[in-house]
């Protein structure tokens, strides 16, 4: 195995141990996050390794990985920028924010990753911050009441190699880092800092 060896194998074992004996399959979701934390996406090799750890077929793991939007099966930028355009955000200008993100990033609609590999833009469904709409997440950390101008600033900061401070909680260094936190293997104390 190339992804799950050494410390990563330890992490995988701790993830599997969260679930009752005989119910190890439950660990497939956090293990996919672990793969994503290393690869920045989920490759076929990643699916195979998760299958190997859980004694599943690759197809069974792929069925799960392709069902959920937070697992990225295709090349993804170092930072994932999600802009909500669902009704509550749309009513407060979310669609303009989404357009501003594309223009600022110099990316066409449907372009999954910027040419420099830094950014992926994603039109999001409701992110559960309707009270602070329009909502944007950068590597799953929230930015509240985002205007088109603020969106341009956020993209400019990312382009300058800086992670903008989220409205609440710690900065995630990257999409990979956020995926690692989502696997639940980072101590909460550290992740909160």
């Amino acid at each position, binding site marked *: 195995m190339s992804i799950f060896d050494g410390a990563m194998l330890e992490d995988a074992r701790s993830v599997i141990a969260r679930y009752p004996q005989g119910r190890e399959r439950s660990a497939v979701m956090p293990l996919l996050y672990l793969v994503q934390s290393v690869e920045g996406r989920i490759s076929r090799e990643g699916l195979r390794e998760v299958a190997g750890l859980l004694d599943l077929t690759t197809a069974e793991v792929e069925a799960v990985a392709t069902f*959920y939007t937070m697992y990225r099966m295709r090349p993804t930028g170092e930072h994932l920028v999600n802009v909500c355009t669902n009704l509550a955000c749309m*009513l407060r200008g979310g669609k303009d924010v989404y357009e501003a993100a594309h223009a600022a990033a110099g990316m066409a609609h449907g372009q999954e990753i910027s040419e420099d590999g830094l950014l992926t833009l994603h039109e999001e469904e409701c992110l559960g911050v309707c009270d602070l709409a329009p909502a944007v997440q950068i590597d799953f950390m929230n930015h509240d009441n985002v205007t088109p101008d603020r969106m341009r600033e956020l993209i400019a900061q990312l382009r300058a190699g800086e992670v903008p401070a989220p409205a609440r909680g710690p900065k995630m260094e990257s999409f990979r880092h956020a995926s690692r936190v989502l696997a639940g293997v980072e101590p909460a104390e550290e992740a909160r800092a």
Partner: protein
Amino acid sequence: MTLDVERRLTRDWDDPSVIGIEGYRAKGGYEGLKRALEMSGADLIQVVKDSGLRGRGGAGFPTGMKWSFVPLDTGKPTYVTVNYDESEPGTCNNRELVERDPHRLIEGSAIAARAIECHTAFIYIRGEYLWQSIVLQKAIEEAYAAGLLGKGIAGGDYDLDIVLHRGAGAYICGEETALLNSLEGLRGQPRLRPPFPAVEGLYESPTVINNVETLMNVPDIVTRGAEWFRELGTEKSPGTKMFTVSGKVERPGNYEIPMGTPFRTLLEEFAGGVIDGRSLKAFTPGGSSTPMLPVDALDVHLDYESIAEAGSLLGTGAIMVLDETDCVVAAAERMVQFYAHESCGKCTPCREGSWWATRVLGRLEDGYGRESDIPLMHDMGTNIMFRAFCALADGAASVINSSLKHFADEYEAHVRLGRCPLREAPAVEGVAS
């Protein structure tokens, strides 16, 4: 907020110390759990039944009754699963409840576990709530360190583990049986019922699935009693309820009010009224899947029964407000796009119907609608409603049916004018408006 309303779930929102276990305990936190450990499961279920607490996730099913359906003599373990997937568009009260008071959820979950003799509880949190999962993980670790979770909690002989499970972006996982599949490491598609989860849920074992807000009401019910709980709210919908008000209001936010409060009070006094002094056009009373209501419903009372009488549902208490300048067809298009995107693909009426509906709504909004599109929308709404396996499809159909019912004129105007009457005529030269 100056309004003189007793706050229960949100009473400590102004005190960030309760996020830590010391602060929470200083305010009487975990006393409910201690009390619960001295009570029998049957007595706990009885007090929750007596309180009349109903599930806050949308269905409004009596919580105590749900717990009482769990058989304890099957020889299998029992499970409590907390539904923190909160994904209904317009809904974000669970997010804030946990951000500001995470231990109350842990305590409520532990009491539920005790009531059904469960030793492993799972909290299923939507993946996008990354910060909230960090807050909750920290609180769980504090509870273990304080001996309130783990082996022999609070010095007794009762063991309880709580496992946090992060989702990965799928609205359907808020449907309880889809949530169970997801937690078991499968695609999040709903299961056939019966068997109901109370009998055969997680890992084919008896399972209680409760919403976050529901469980956060439980500690107070145990310490203060069922009668206290019933002092607010209505006879059939007791207690307070969290409402999220979003869209075109002056003060969007999460507000806790007694069940049965008039919508007008929530809108005008809490949320500051419609933005910029405009008029109300429409609102969803319980998230995008509940039928939208027009301005005539301004005086509806916010409880399960009154909203049902008005032709909608309390749902998750997520009120999205449209003002006079907002287009109902554009709103319907965006809401139905959501269901088309989130359909799990299991059933044809939902998977295909919601997608086709977005095409028709889209062309209406863009000015290419035909007269036949309005009966076609009626036909689609009728043929999606109640014809799929779970309620996700009904959400899409509710948007279609309720917008047609209350705003037929606006649909017709789109066809007649060949454009959206609320959008300025296209500014492109040579394009007729």
